[in-house]
C-alpha cells in the first residue's frame, strides 16, 4: 500500500512562505513517548495526549480547575465523592461517553501495573450510580482529588475491549499495546497520523462538546532534538512555535524579524538539598558540619542569587526564598523573603561553628535537566569558595545525578520541583520535607526530620476544609524555612519562541495547550 504523508514544513520551505491559515507547526525537543495516556507519567507526553483525550476536570489557561467531562461534583462522605458527567459527549470514533468509560479508565490508571498509579493515590473503586453519575470510593479524605483528576484521561470502554487494551501497558512484558499508536478521545483534536520522531499530525475534532477558543484546523508536531536546528527551523519559517527555545539564543530570536520569545517565570523552583546526616559523603572533616544551622546559614548567605539571575539567567529568573512558586497553594509573601547575600557574615558564622578554615563537600548538579543548571552550580561553587567553603563540584547527566540523589550519595545537591501534577504545596511537604517512610519523604535530605513539619504534613493530607488546610501548609513550610532544610534559589524561566502570527497563553506549568492557540495569517 502506498501511503503518503505530507511534511508541509518542507513544502512550505519550497514555496518560501508560511503554510495555510490555520495550521500550526510546532516543534519540541523530543517526541511523545506514546499515545496511551495511562502508560507514562511524563508531563510533556501527557499534555500532548490531552489534546486528544480529556479528564473529568481540567486546568484552564490560568491553571484554575474547571469542569471538563464532569459538570459538577459533591462530597457524599469523606471517602465517597460523586461526579455528574457531561451529557451528549461522543468519542472521536462515535462512541457515547458514559459512566462505564470513567470506571474503566480510572481503574486502568490505578492498576497495580500502571505507572500512573502514584498520580491518583487512594482511589479504591469507582461505582456506577447511573449512566451519567459515578461515585469515587476513596481510602480516606482526599482534599486534592480534583487536582489529581486533571491528569487522568478518559478512554472508551468498548474501544479498549475491542482492541484488547483494557489492561495497562507494561513495558516489562513483551506485547505492544494498540493504544500506543492509536487514539480515540473526546478532546479538541484527533490523531491523523503519527511517525515516531518525525511527525505527529492532529486535526480539529469538529464534534467537540466545548466551544473552541482556538482557530486551528491542523497541528503538525515535529520533534527536533538539536537546539540549534530547532531555532534555525523557526527562523527559516519552517516552524511556528518552538518549546523550549534555548536561553542562549534569546537575543538572536528577539533580533530576528517576525519571531519573538515567550519568557515568564515558571512554576519550577530550583533549590539545593543539604545532607544533614551523621557524615558527609565526601568530606575532609569528622562528622557533618552541615548539621549545624549556622553552617547552613553561612552556605545560604554565601550565594549571590541576584548576580546569578543577571549574569547566568539573563535577568529572566525569579529569585526566591520559597520552595514553591506564587501560583502554588501554600505560598505567602513572607515565604519569599531571602536571607541577604553576605559573604563576610558567612565567614563569621563558619568560624563561629568551628570551621574557620572551611571544609570540603560534594556539590552535585545535573547538566541537562534544568535551565543553565551547570552554569548556576559553577557560579555557586565559586561563591561558596569565596566564603571559605571547599565545594567539590560534580556535574553529570540527569540519570547519574538522580541515581545519586535517590541513593543519598550527595552532600549539597540541586533539585527542581514544580509541584506537578497536583499544583499544591502538599507536594513539597510530602516528597521533600516529611521524614522518609512509606509514601513520604522520597527526596527529603538525609537526616532532616522536624516533628512539627511531619505532624502538619500528615494533617494536611486528610484535611478537607480548604482554609484550614492552606494555613497548615503555610505553617509547615515556614517551619522548614527556619530550619534551612533546603537552600532555595529561584523559579526558572519558561522559554518558548513563536512566529508573530501565533497567539498563545504561556501557563506557568510550562505545558503547551494548543486549544488556546490562535494563528493569524
Amino acid at each position, binding site marked *: 500500500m502506498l501511503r*503518503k*504523508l505530507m511534511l508541509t514544513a518542507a513544502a512550505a520551505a519550497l514555496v518560501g512562505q508560511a503554510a495555510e491559515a490555520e495550521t500550526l507547526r510546532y516543534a519540541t525537543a523530543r517526541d511523545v513517548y506514546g499515545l496511551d495516556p495511562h502508560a507514562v*507519567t511524563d508531563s510533556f507526553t501527557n499534555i500532548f495526549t490531552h489534546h486528544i483525550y480529556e479528564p473529568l476536570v481540567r486546568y484552564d489557561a490560568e491553571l484554575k480547575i474547571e469542569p471538563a467531562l464532569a459538570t459538577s461534583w459533591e462530597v457524599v462522605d469523606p471517602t465517597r465523592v460523586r461526579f455528574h458527567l457531561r451529557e451528549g459527549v461522543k468519542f472521536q470514533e462515535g462512541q457515547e461517553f458514559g459512566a462505564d468509560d470513567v470506571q474503566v479508565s480510572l481503574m486502568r490508571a490505578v492498576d497495580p501495573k500502571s505507572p500512573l498509579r502514584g498520580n491518583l493515590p487512594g482511589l479504591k473503586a469507582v461505582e456506577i450510580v447511573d449512566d451519567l453519575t459515578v461515585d469515587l470510593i476513596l481510602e480516606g479524605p482526599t482534599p486534592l482529588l480534583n487536582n489529581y483528576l486533571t491528569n487522568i484521561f478518559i478512554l472508551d470502554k468498548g474501544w479498549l475491549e475491542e482492541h484488547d487494551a483494557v489492561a495497562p501497558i507494561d513495558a516489562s512484558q513483551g506485547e505492544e499495546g494498540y493504544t500506543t499508536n492509536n487514539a480515540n478521545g473526546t478532546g479538541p483534536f484527533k490523531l491523523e497520523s503519527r511517525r515516531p520522531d518525525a511527525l505527529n499530525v492532529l486535526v480539529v475534532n469538529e464534534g467537540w462538546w466545548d466551544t473552541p477558543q482556538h482557530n486551528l484546523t491542523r497541528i503538525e508536531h515535529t520533534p527536533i*532534538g538539536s537546539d540549534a536546528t530547532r531555532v*534555525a527551523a523557526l527562523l*527559516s519559517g519552517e516552524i511556528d512555535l518552538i518549546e523550549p527555545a534555548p536561553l542562549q539564543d534569546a537575543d538572536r530570536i528577539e533580533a530576528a524579524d517576525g519571531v519573538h520569545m515567550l519568557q515568564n517565570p515558571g512554576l519550577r523552583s530550583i533549590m539545593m538539598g543539604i545532607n544533614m546526616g551523621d557524615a558527609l559523603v565526601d568530606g575532609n572533616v569528622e562528622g557533618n558540619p552541615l548539621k549545624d544551622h549556622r553552617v547552613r546559614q553561612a552556605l545560604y548567605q554565601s550565594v549571590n542569587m541576584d548576580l546569578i539571575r543577571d549574569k547566568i539567567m539573563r535577568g529572566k529568573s525569579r529569585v526566591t526564598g520559597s520552595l514553591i512558586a506564587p501560583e502554588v497553594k501554600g505560598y505567602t509573601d513572607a515565604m519569599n523573603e531571602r536571607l541577604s547575600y553576605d559573604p563576610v557574615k558567612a565567614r563569621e558564622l563558619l568560624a563561629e561553628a568551628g570551621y574557620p578554615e572551611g571544609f570540603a563537600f560534594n556539590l552535585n548538579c545535573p547538566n541537562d535537566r534544568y535551565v543553565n543548571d551547570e552554569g548556576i552550580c559553577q557560579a555557586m561553587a565559586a561563591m561558596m569558595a569565596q566564603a571559605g567553603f571547599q565545594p567539590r563540584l560534580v556535574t553529570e*547527566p540527569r540519570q547519574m545525578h538522580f*541515581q545519586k540523589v535517590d541513593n543519598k550519595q550527595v552532600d549539597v545537591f540541586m533539585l527542581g520541583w514544580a509541584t506537578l501534577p497536583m499544583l499544591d504545596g502538599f507536594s513539597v511537604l510530602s516528597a521533600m520535607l516529611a521524614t522518609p517512610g512509606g509514601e513520604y519523604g522520597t527526596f527529603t535530605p538525609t537526616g532532616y526530620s522536624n516533628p512539627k513539619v511531619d505532624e502538619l504534613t500528615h494533617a494536611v493530607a486528610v484535611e478537607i476544609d480548604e482554609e484550614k488546610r492552606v494555613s497548615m501548609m503555610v505553617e509547615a513550610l515556614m517551619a522548614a524555612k527556619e530550619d534551612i532544610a533546603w537552600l532555595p534559589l529561584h523559579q526558572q524561566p519558561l522559554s518558548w519562541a513563536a512566529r508573530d502570527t501565533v497567539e498563545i497563553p504561556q501557563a506557568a506549568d510550562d505545558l503547551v495547550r494548543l486549544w488556546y492557540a490562535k494563528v493569524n495569517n
Partner: protein
Amino acid sequence: MLGFLIRRIIQSVFVMLAVALIAFMMFRFMGDPVNSMVAENATTEERDAVRARLGLDQPLWMQYGRFVGRAAQGDFGLSWRNARPVSTLLAERFPATAELVLVAAGLSLLLGIPLGILTALRPNSFSAQTLQFLSLIGISLPTFVTGILLILVFSVWLGWLPSFGRGEVVDIGWWSTGFLTLSGLKALVLPSVMLCLFQLTLIMRLVRAEMMEVLRTDYIKFARARGLPSRSINFRHALRNTLIPVITIFGLQLGGLIAFAIITETVFQWPGMGALFIQAVSFGDVPVMAAYLVLVSLIFVVINTTVDLLYAVLDPRLRVDSPRGAH
C-alpha cells in the same frame, strides 16, 4: 573459501556476544533509567517496584543472560521509553539511515575519485591547490559544525533546503523512501553532504596519493614511451591500479559512515537508527541500546567479511595455498 566463511561466522557470533557483554557492563554507569519512567513525585516504593518489574534488581550476569537468551530467539524486548518492540523500532528506522548512508557513500565516491584524479594529474594547478586546501578543512572541521553551517546558509539565509526531517516519504511495504518525492530529495541534500564530507576528502586524498605513486612506476613510463594516448594511460592503466586500495578503504569506512550518521541524524532530526540510539542513551533505554549496538557490530562484521572476500578476489596473491592466507 567455505571454511573461511564458516570460521568468520563463528567469530562474528563471539564478537556480538562480546559487544553485548561490554554494553551491559557500561549500562551500569549510565545511571538509573527508572527515574525517567516514574513520575517526579513517585515514592521510593513505586520506584523499587518498577526496578523489580524490569529486572534491574537482578545481578548483571542474569540481565545479560536473559538478553542473550531472548535475542537468540529474535526477541529484543520492548523499549522502555515508548513500550514498542525494539525490533519494530529498528526496522522502522533502518530505511532512513540506509538511504542517508547510501547517498553519502555514493557522493563521496562520485566526487572523491574524479577530484582525486584531477589533483593528481595537475598537482600544481590553481584548482588542484584550492581543492587540496579545501579538503584539509573538510577533514579537520567537526561534522556537527559543518552541519550547523549548512543549515544556517541554505535554510535560514537562502531558504532553499529544509533544516530538519526527511520531507515527504512514500511507504513501499515496510520500507519508507524519500527518493520518490521532491521534498524527500531536497531533505536528503544537506544531511548527506554533511555526512559525506569526511569520506569525500579522505577518498580524494587517497586517490591523489595512490595515483601519483602509480604514475611514477616503470610500466606507466613504458606506456608513455610506447606513445599511448595519455587518456588511455591515465584511466585504463593508472586508475585501475589505484582503485584497489581505495575500494578496500571505502568498504571499511562504510561502517564509519553508519557510526557518523548518529551525529548527522541528531543535527538534522533525521529519523534513523542513530537518532533512536541517542534518545535511548538519554533515557537509559537499555533494550534499544543493547539491540542497536549488537546490530551495528553485525553490520561491521558483515562489511569487513565482504571486504576480506573481495580482497581475495581482487588480489590473486592473497589466494595462495594456505587457507590461513585469506585473513
